[in-house]
């Protein structure tokens, strides 16, 4: 009987999780629709957009640079055995560049962005919710989606694309420096391998992913921030949910976009 009870409890638990996931997915979809509707016509609080661009973009540059530099270096380390075995020094630029531009760059920068900017955004909106600031906007007949959410969504999409561009450039620099230091390959050899074999399409492929990831991170963090219940504990839960949801979304979208463009 006890094993039956435990099985029943597990089934109920799975059911509850499924319902919660479906509710959240639906809520995020509704928020996405509200954001899209608020852009027609595009009346935007410019000051709020600029404030978010600065907070999300400018302040993220140092950590993006650090992340990208190490990403580039570790790509070289991973390629080192292959390069040494086959003497394929000319392939370093192509191989690492392909991975960085199309996959590793947008993915890792997106995940880092989610952990930093997405978490901060969920915490900020969650705190605003539990301290009645969202109600304060509603009492002033101001649509919180138009005033707060749309600038944040746009800011995150724009900044993640820009951060990815910066990250791609720094990662390639990291590849060139690491190749020189670890494999004794001249940086120009790496550079020519990169420019001779990769094109604008590879670069834009990564940026398209970054734009999509930015939207996923923004919608996820905004949704969980706005639906906080339960004070400080609720804000903590919302931040956790936002980061996990964004990470899952990024991986799924990455798979989908890669599969569809393969």
């Amino acid at each position, binding site marked *: 009987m006890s094993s039956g009870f435990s099985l029943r409890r597990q089934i109920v638990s799975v059911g509850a999780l499924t319902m919660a996931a479906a509710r959240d997915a639906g809520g995020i979809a509704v928020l996405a629709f509200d954001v899209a509707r608020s852009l027609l016509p595009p009346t935007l609080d410019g000051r709020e957009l600029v404030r978010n661009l600065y907070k999300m973009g400018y302040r993220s540059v140092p950590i993006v640079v650090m992340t990208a530099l190490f990403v580039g270096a570790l790509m070289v380390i991973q390629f080192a055995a292959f390069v040494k075995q086959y003497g394929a020094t000319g392939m370093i630029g192509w191989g690492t560049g392909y991975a960085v531009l199309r996959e590793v760059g947008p993915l890792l920068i997106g995940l880092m962005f989610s952990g930093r900017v997405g978490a901060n955004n969920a915490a900020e909106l969650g705190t605003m919710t539990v301290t009645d600031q969202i109600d*304060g906007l509603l009492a002033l007949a101001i649509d919180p989606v138009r005033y707060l959410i749309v600038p944040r969504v746009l800011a995150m999409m724009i900044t993640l694309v820009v951060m990815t561009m910066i990250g791609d450039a720094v990662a390639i620099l990291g590849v060139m420096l690491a190749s020189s230091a670890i494999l004794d390959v001249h940086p120009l050899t790496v550079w020519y391998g990169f420019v001779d074999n990769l094109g604008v399409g590879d670069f834009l492929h990564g940026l398209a992913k970054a734009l999509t990831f930015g939207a996923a991170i923004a919608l996820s963090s905004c949704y969980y921030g706005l639906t906080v219940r339960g004070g400080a504990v609720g804000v903590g839960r919302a931040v956790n949910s936002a980061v996990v949801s964004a990470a899952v979304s990024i991986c799924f979208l990455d798979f989908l976009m890669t599969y569809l463009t393969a």
Partner: protein
Amino acid sequence: MTAIMTATASAAAIAPSTFAIELAGVAKRFGPRSVLADVTLRVARGARLGVIGPAAGGKTVLLKLIAGLIRPDAGEIRVAGRIGMLFQNCALFDFLSVADNVAFPLVQEGDVPAAEIAGRVAARLRAVGLAGSERKVPSELSGGMKKRVGLARATVARPDVVLYDEPTAGLDPVTTSKVYQLLRDDHDATGGTAVVVSSDVEAVATFADTIAYVDRGAVRWVGPAASLLDADDPVVRGFARGTA
């Protein structure tokens, strides 16, 4: 309970068009719990209504329904004119300075000249005793200062109806007295309609001309503030005297 309860500034007969706030058959549930049931209430223009009652009786829900922050499950609510609201937590925007918080309603209107905004913000901050605090942010303010900034923001756009949710919660008696004096001065200057939800019966009775007692989702008693302590309802009388 269906009864038309009217909060008026005077005992004279009031024509329906002079009501600033009208609730008819309003009900609200949260899940299985009924918070308000069949509330009908009219507040005349220029009246000062105090809403008192025990905790979890439905006072704040009533105020949020009037403000339009939540929708009723049944009934109708009409409010004539614009609404300003002072929240219990003040609801100041953390990312704006004191001056920007107060200016916010005017900025959002979109058609108020910048010079006029600056002038009205300065006047409001002077009126609440916070001239010189324009550049501070909410995290640098005391509880009483936050209330005063919230009051300035709630009234800067000259709303027709101002709603106050526990305006003196957490404040010491001296600051409480000052806040209610500010509310009186404001109301006397603008002549708008005010609704105050408060657990501080003594303080709210000094401001309001009419009191509504809300308990278990119903407006149980409405009458002049002067007669609260001698209310014919023993529950209301006991609550007001602190002997319930």
